[in-house]
């Protein structure tokens, strides 16, 4: 089983990197762009010892306790068999 975890800055936190990318894209002439937010992506390969429900809670714990700083970041994830 694999877990795909996405970590992004909270909406209330300024994202200077996203802003810079946005500025560059605009300068390059890409159209229709309103905002760019930069985040992090983690791919976790699980060893098969957990049920789906257990994997769900374990990955949530990993994401909450380690992969994000709750002061500035939030996360979402999906599982794939």
């Amino acid at each position, binding site marked *: 089983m694999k877990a795909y975890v996405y970590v992004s*800055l909270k909406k*209330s*936190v*300024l994202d*200077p*990197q996203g802003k*810079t990318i946005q500025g560059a894209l605009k300068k390059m002439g890409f159209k229709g762009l309103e905002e760019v937010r930069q985040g992090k992506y983690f791919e976790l390969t699980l060893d098969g010892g957990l049920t789906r429900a257990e994997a769900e809670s374990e990955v949530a714990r990993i994401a909450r306790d*380690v*992969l994000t*700083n709750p*002061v*500035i970041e939030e996360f979402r994830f999906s599982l794939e068999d």
Partner: protein
Amino acid sequence: MKFGVIIFPGSNCDHDAYWTIQQVAKQPVTFLWHDSHDLENCDAIIVPGGFAYGDYLRTGAIAKFSPVMESVRKFADGGGLVLGICNGFQILCESGLLPGALTRNVGLKYVCKPVHVRVENADTPFTNACRQGEVLTIPIGHMDGNYFCDDATLEELRRDQRIVFRYATPTGEITPEANPNGSLDNIAGICSPGRNVLGMMPHPERSSEPELGGTEGFKIFQSLVGAMAEKP
């Protein structure tokens, strides 16, 4: 009265802090290894600058799980003096010893230069040798020094006078131009509710001897020595 300077893999201001305490402040000091719970009966702990555990994932994110930080948390809860400098400040925030977080500098550049900070609270163990409102020139050197916290936390920090240093002009005005990294409210350093934990982005150990171009950072160490002498 003994100081302890923590060494994480990736710390690089540990020896500077050690030198300042031993050679300039003339106080006993020892290094503390990240992998040990033993604080060796130190009376004050320095969490130095650098890139603990390579700053992988986030600054301070891995360091907060180290054995030594478990002990530092207990030590701080019991009123022990803890000074976090630069990466040390980031680690203290990640560890929950101080509120908020230090994010990427607004200009996206590593900023390395002397800055001016105004002492907002001279009534702490870290600033008792300063005058209230005094402007100190101390160097910074960081990529992630942009202090952020939510509105309620900022309100609390202001109300309880826990903002200890703010980036200022040489004459002590708080302006956006004087803010090198985009920090909320020009915050350069904050302390815990009990005043016994301080985190600051500027490096006082880099301005503690005339040979380094300035001595105003030494007031932080001088304050600590004074505060420790007063303790029973």
